[in-house]
């Protein structure tokens, strides 16, 4: 029993990682006033890129770098459409969704080999891993997991304690005032949108290089959407996003562990668990949630 519980909790931390990565990028993005609904497909695409490049070069690092580059490039299309031109952000994001998914599946089906890679090995932290119970749950993971949680703290610090963070928040709340104060509103927005793609790239890489080691159609399997739900659940705070992504990570982990031990519930019902959690969360947490004031409103000087 303890073993299963440890497996579930430890799996929850691993499965929270891609969600946390994408949520962090989306927090900055939305704080600056741009919504990116394409995250889900950007994660699938970058997951593929990471796997493919990692497989061909034999290096997890090169794969990850390629993934964040690909994520940034796709996000650049979104930021060009929404920030430079002012296309409706929801529609643009949903088009990015089909675009990125299409590119990923097209590239995957054009390959003559099936890329596979051995997922990144867990790294033990001397001293911490030896702690009973907690050690294996928190400190026996691969680099992606540590990076995600570390970045959450860095992102929180930058957002709340630095001039950069202040500017990002300002641009999302009152772009007019920021412009008057001499801040280049659209430049910050561009950077934040690209950052959301880069972070989704980390998310995709952590999924294929850190966990699955394979690609399949729609590999993100809703994690991108759940990342955006985590953003709202955590009320646009990188710190609270840690907790939010852990809730969903646990959902995924419970489902896959129960499938693993062969519970007498149909497989597909267990697979639904994270989405049912999402629906409940959305229903009860969204009421009266106040987002950045200028979210989805393009900025143009009058």
């Amino acid at each position, binding site marked *: 029993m303890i073993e299963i519980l440890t497996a579930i909790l430890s799996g929850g931390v691993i499965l929270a990682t891609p969600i946390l990565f994408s949520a962090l990028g989306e927090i900055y993005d939305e704080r600056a006033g741009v*919504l990116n*609904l394409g995250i889900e497909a950007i994660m699938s695409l970058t997951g593929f890129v990471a796997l493919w490049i990692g497989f061909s070069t034999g290096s997890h690092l090169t794969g990850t770098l390629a993934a964040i580059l690909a994520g940034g490039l796709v996000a650049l*299309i979104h930021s*060009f*459409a929404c920030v430079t*031109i*002012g*296309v*409706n*952000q*929801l*529609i*643009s994001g*949903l*088009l*990015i*969704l*089909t*675009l990125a*998914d*299409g*590119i990923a*599946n*097209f590239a995957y*089906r*054009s390959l003559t080999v099936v890329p596979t890679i051995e997922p990144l090995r867990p790294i033990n932290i001397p001293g911490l891993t030896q702690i009973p119970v907690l050690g294996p749950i928190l400190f026996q993971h691969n680099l992606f997991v540590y990076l995600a949680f570390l970045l959450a703290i860095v992102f929180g610090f930058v957002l709340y304690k630095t001039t950069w963070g202040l500017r990002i928040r300002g641009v999302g709340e009152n772009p007019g005032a920021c412009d008057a104060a001499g801040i280049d509103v659209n430049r910050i927005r561009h950077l934040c949108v690209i950052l959301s793609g880069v972070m989704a790239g980390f998310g995709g890489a952590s999924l294929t290089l850190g966990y699955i080691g394979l690609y399949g159609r729609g590999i993100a399997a*809703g994690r991108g*959407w759940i990342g*955006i*739900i985590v953003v*709202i659940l955590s009320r646009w705070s990188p710190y609270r996003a840690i907790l939010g992504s852990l809730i969903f990570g646990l959902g995924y982990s419970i489902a896959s562990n129960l499938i693993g031990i062969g519970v007498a519930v*149909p*497989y*597909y*019902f267990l*697979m*639904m668990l994270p*989405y*049912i959690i*999402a*629906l409940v969360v*959305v*229903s009860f947490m*969204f*009421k*009266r*949630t*106040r*987002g950045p*004031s200028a*979210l*989805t*409103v*393009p900025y*143009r000087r009058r």
Partner: protein
Amino acid sequence: MNASEGCMRSSPSSNSEEGNRRAPIRERLERYMSYPVGLLVALFIFSAILLAMGLNPILSIETVLYGSFGTTFSASETFVRVTPLLLSTLAFLIGFKARFLNIGAEGQLHIGALTAYLVASQMEGLPSGLSIPLVIFASFAGGVSWLAIPLLLRIRLEVNEVFPTVVMNFIARFIISWLCTGPIKDPNALNPQTRVIPEGTWLPLMVSGTRLHAGIILAVLLAFLVYLVLYKTVLGYEIRAVGLNPRASKHGGISLSQSMISVGLLSGGLAGLAGMVEVIGAHHLLIEGFSPGFGYQGIGIAALGGFHPLGAIFASMLFSILQIGGETMQRGAGVPIDLVYVLQAILVLSVLIVERWITVKRQK
């Protein structure tokens, strides 16, 4: 400012400014220019991609056109594909007009297909004149039922509908996968699919030797009906008013929750019908993965058609040509069909970008 207003403030007017004011001819002409220009931009990008892959762009266009219209059969397949595309486009469009963003057409059409199958499979021996309307009604109700939770959340708790509808898509897909691999699977079939439904429930065939069924007529008629409802009735006026300015509409005496309910009923129902035509029109059974994302594609088609129901007819036709032609290319040249989905996204994005760019330029 709460989540449903502040978080997703996306006015339909940001990409199609109409309201009740008819724009001057010159302005409208300029806006229509975005189609040829956007098409050219997309063609340019796409030729570059094809050339990079070592394919001849002109030959590829020929293949796509021949593949979608070259023979009676391919032309009929093109019209078969238009049907679910057009219906899911209308589903998104009517919601969009009222600022109700139903991203869940994919899930609703899965449930619509399921209810259509469940009812049709019980109709053995009944005359078509009775069974088909019953199946259509059931699929409409099925689609609506899948939108009920997001709709209730929106009206009662002011929860933005985008995320509930998306989450419901995933749940619907799992339900269909579960049923098609287990409880209602045809034990003799290899694929995850059900038994064939009774012949009396099949939509009438229009050209023998093809799969072209009467669903296309239903879809086009519904497009005109949606046009009439939106632009010629009080309900449509209210829907558009709510979409353009919810607060002003409320002060003008329009009940927001009532117009949301009407929009939700129409939107979910139309999506349900999109699933129905695939079951009782195209396949005559329910098969897992019958939809390559019709619900999501409807969003792009709606945008391409200028968020107008009649524009949606042409836009869905274009998407269908690309898809059926693309499937021919997949069989012939071995180019994966996913390339077509990439093209579709590039095409719509180009048109939207050019359109927006022209609008902004004029305002300056």
